């Protein structure tokens, strides 16, 4: 069992002052093995905070991020899964699942974690799964109206990943889960 936190689009301090207190109390150091961050933190303070939660931190660049050294996209392997990260402002049309599927194929990953729209999504298509953890602070978005703060926790176990989405709705944290199974693929020719 490997816990991966997928989180992003906090937009601190431009659009929000801080994570919701209820989220902060849930995110405790030492419980999570990896953090995947879609981008738009935007300041170093948030980066440092994530580092305290888990040293294995992977971030891609959002268009408002203060640190311009974050990569445009990133791939990593966790257990049997290949994961890819990309903020999503580069993928036109924004939030378009087919276009995101293309990026997924290009990065050759099972799970693509992306953001920008501030809208939670967990979408299975032929090539894999696209996950958008939404905005952890519920920040303003031109794309989505009425954004609820949300983040995702993935439990990777063998060929199975359980995606838990945590959403703050009317002051209460609601949890939902979705199961994905991967079929063992033949090793790709190199």
């Amino acid at each position: 069992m490997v816990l991966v936190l997928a989180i992003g689009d906090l937009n601190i301090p431009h659009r929000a002052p801080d994570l919701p207190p209820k989220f902060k109390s849930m995110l405790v150091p030492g419980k999570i093995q990896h953090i995947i961050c879609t981008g738009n933190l935007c300041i170093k303070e948030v980066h440092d905070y994530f580092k305290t939660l888990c040293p294995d931190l992977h971030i891609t660049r959002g268009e408002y991020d203060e640190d311009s050294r974050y990569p445009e996209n990133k791939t990593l392997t966790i257990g049997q899964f290949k994961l890819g990260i990309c903020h999503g402002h580069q993928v036109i049309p924004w939030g378009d699942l087919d276009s995101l599927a293309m990026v997924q194929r290009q990065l050759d990953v099972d799970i693509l974690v992306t953001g920008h729209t501030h809208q939670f999504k967990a979408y299975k298509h032929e090539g894999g799964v696209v996950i958008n953890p939404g905005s952890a602070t519920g920040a303003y978005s031109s794309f989505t109206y009425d954004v609820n703060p949300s983040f995702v926790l993935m439990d990777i176990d063998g060929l199975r990943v359980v995606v838990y989405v945590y959403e703050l709705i009317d002051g209460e944290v609601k949890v939902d889960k979705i199961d994905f199974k991967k079929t063992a693929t033949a090793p790709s020719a190199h």
Partner: protein
Amino acid sequence: MLLIGAEDEEKWLAEGIAGVQHNAFYLHRALDSNNLRDALKYSAQMLSELRTSKLSPQKYYELYMRAFDELRILEMFFKDESKHGVSVVDLYELVQHAGNILPRLYLLCTVGSVYIKSKEAPAKELLQDLVEMCHGVQHPIRGLFLRSYLAQISRDKLLDIGSDYEGDADTVMDAVEFILENFTEMNKLWVRMQLEGPGRVREKREKERSALQELVGKNLHVLSQIEGVDLEIYKETVLPRVLEQVVNCKDDLSQYYLMDCIIQVFPDEYHLQTLEMLLAACPQVQPTVDIKTVLSRLMDRLSKYAASSADVLTEFLQVEAFTKLSNAIEKVIEVQVDMPAVGAITLYVSLLTFTLRVHPDRLDYVDQVLGACVKKLSSIPKLEDSRATKQVVALLSAPLEKYNDTVTALKISNYPRVMDHLDNGTNKVMAMVIIESIMKNNTCISTADKVEVLFELIKGLIKDLDSATDELDEEDFKDEQNSVAKLIHMLYNNEPEEMLKIICIVWKHTMAGGPKRLPFTVPSLVFSALRLVRQLQGQEGDIVGEEVPATPKKIFQLLSQMIEALSAVPSPELALRLYLQCAEAANGCDLEYVAYEFFTQVFVLYEEEIANSKAQVTAIHLIIGALQRMNVFSVENRDTLTHKTTGYSARLLKKPDQCRAVYACSHLFWVDGQDGIRDGERVLLCLKRALRIANAAQQMASIARDSSGPVTLFVEILNKYLYYFEKGNKQITAAAIQHLIELINTEMQGDSATSDAFLASTLRYIQFQKQRGGVMGAKFESIKL
């Protein structure tokens, strides 16, 4: 009297103890044989050792304790008349024949103790007699110990008397008088120690005196323990007499110790009822006395007392405790002209702590304390003492900690005036403390007035206070500005009119802060304004009545100003992003011209200010992404903007970037949704253009051996073909797709393996679509792999 050489002292103490032991031996023998005459002789000799002038107080105490123990044994002998056959009355007479006064008095006290217990004479008379006779010993140390002995042996009798054991009301006063008399004389002796003795170093003398302080204080302890000493007696007799001695002795050590002793020893209820009298003594003490610590401890005790019950609290109001304390402090500060600023401010901190604990609801009291501090700070030049500064920060932080709602602190009118007296550095520190308090308590500042007050308080962060800018630490500056940026989100009112007012006030202050601050604060303010626009969007049509100032249009005008100022910093990339946000928001409000104007600004910035090629790539994609979602433009306007966008896309520096931007532009001509544009031809034009660029890139790469694999570009374009094919763009044919696949396969032969996986998964996707059956399956069937 007191000697310097420590070794000598040890020697004399040893000699003294030897003397005591020697005489004690014979004393015991006399007692064993019931020989009164010898007992008196040897005890007198033993007590003569206490006549020494050679010992320091600590050493004298050791000697004294030895004698004390022997006197206990003697007392028991005296008590048992059967042993010596002399009545206590006669015994009292007999001991007065001892030669030297000191031994005589010790013996007299010892007999007196027995005499009083026997009740053969009124205690009052005996006690008076003894306390007066002790006048005979005027030597400070010897006199102190003698009187201490008297106090010790009379203690339990005094407590008995005081508890109305006798049934006679007057006797309580007798006990009180006795103790007061003894106390007064002991204090006089104690003070006299300071003045006597040859060339002594002051500190050593004070240390020696400090060792004896409890001998004097003990008297007050006993007074407090006497049951019969009620509030009345305390108020009418005890306190006035004690304070009189305290003030008149004019000795700082004594004054400090005794004031503190009174406060610690007597009940808080008494202090509350005698507050005025007690406080009146404070300005009268010597200037060197640390009266502020005394006052702090008093206020501390009273605070705890107030917390004990609600009835007590009413008492506080009744006796006007706050006013009395406040006045006393003013008087002390006035009288002690040499008191440094830190002293005065510490007093205010204590008073404020008291006020916040006892009268937290009385903001007027809190304001008064701060006001007094302002007055003090105004009378001195700029505060430079760091301890004083720390105290001012403590003063200002206390209300914030007490009232979790920072808004309450904002209501204290003297608060900003105190802050004005801080140096710039500390002012900023304090401003950060205020902001942290707001963030921590999740306080919402909801009116324009309060925002104005708040920004006045934190002005040290918002703008440069002096014309000469202080040394700025980059990191600190960033932290400060980010704090202000976060703070902006805490300023909110549900009412659009009020919210707009708030935004205007914040903008006014932000503008005055200068260019270096704008990149931090403008984005927060912009998004705050955009949230308001969205709120008004929802309310459109509901507004009836007179002209309402808060409209999206007005807000967009303001936004325009803000972002323009930001771009002038210069901060073009950020400004570009914010203009795009505004354009999208204007789209949502159906304001075509406003949206167009924002796009114009975007392109101006792109053309003139964004030179970095990487920045251009990001900017172009942001423009394409935003433009693709705009539905408010007329065909012409949309065309103009699209044309510009595709033009810029094709002119990016690197070929791969060009290619990607151009095929991204294809989406400008195909928008899902019922009113969406679906121009299949122009989509194809874009894709073909992208192909040409990809070809060119591939040719250039084969010359320059660039490893960035242009084959990927072809696969990307293939994916786009598939995208539109699926969406039903008639211009995209299965043949075209097949042709593209063949092209890619050809290219792949001599190239890196990285595109392999991409192509493979793309082909797999096509296969998947074929197998789906239905309409999609039929469509994809035509693609031959």
